């Protein structure tokens, strides 16, 4: 019994519940077993695929997407979900489209 409790506690500390909201989309991306060690770079393709988005750069351009947390842009893609969530078991991110300006 104690071993089961310890295992459950360990699992709780390895995973978190992740919600990613894409502004204007009906449904958020939700992963209730996201690894705390997952980086934003690893997460991004999963999220873009969920929202059916394609990111483009380079000469011909294309839309660029970034994550934001609590209104602040997250520019370091090597950051882990656990680092952003700190001690929380839940993490809410926004996927933000970078816009052209004239």
């Amino acid at each position, binding site marked *: 019994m104690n071993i089961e409790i310890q295992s459950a506690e360990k699992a709780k500390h390895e995973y978190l519940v992740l919600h990613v909201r894409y*502004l204007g989309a009906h449904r958020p991306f939700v992963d209730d077993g996201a690894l705390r060690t997952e980086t934003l770079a690893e997460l991004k393709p999963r999220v873009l695929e969920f929202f059916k988005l394609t990111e483009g750069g380079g000469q011909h351009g294309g839309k660029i997407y970034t994550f934001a947390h609590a209104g602040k842009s997250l520019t370091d893609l090597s950051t882990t979900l656990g680092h952003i969530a700190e001690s929380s078991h839940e993490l809410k991110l926004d996927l933000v489209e970078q816009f052209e*300006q004239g």
Partner: protein
Amino acid sequence: MASDLELSLFEQELVEVRELPEVSRWLLERDGSVSLGLLVTMYPSANPEELYLARIRWTNLFEPASLKFLKRDTRADNDPTAWPQCRGFRPAQLDACVSWTAEGHALHPEWAGSPKATFRAPERPVQYVLLLLQSELDGSYAGRGHR
């Protein structure tokens, strides 16, 4: 003139946006002079004392919305000091020259053919503009506009 579908979606969204966590920071009103319009008072998270009254109007709910800032006491739409300075906003020209506004696309018709700047109609247009505007106020605010 807005279609029945647009009017219906707009009404549905007005209910849904009131469930957003951010709504506690906003004062939302309908813009009664048009069928698809809102007035919303917002502030940047770093400067909660700086209140801005935005007027958002759609000619077509699936196209970029018009964005103007109004003077809060008179509701005049011709005062640069009613505008926040954010990414792409031009208080002196009384417009937001960005690819998510009608004004931006009117100034840059070439954006319609640009993979980077073309407008991708969101599933929830009202929520989209409100959250985007809040995001700009929180992330790129650099003070009030000047005359």
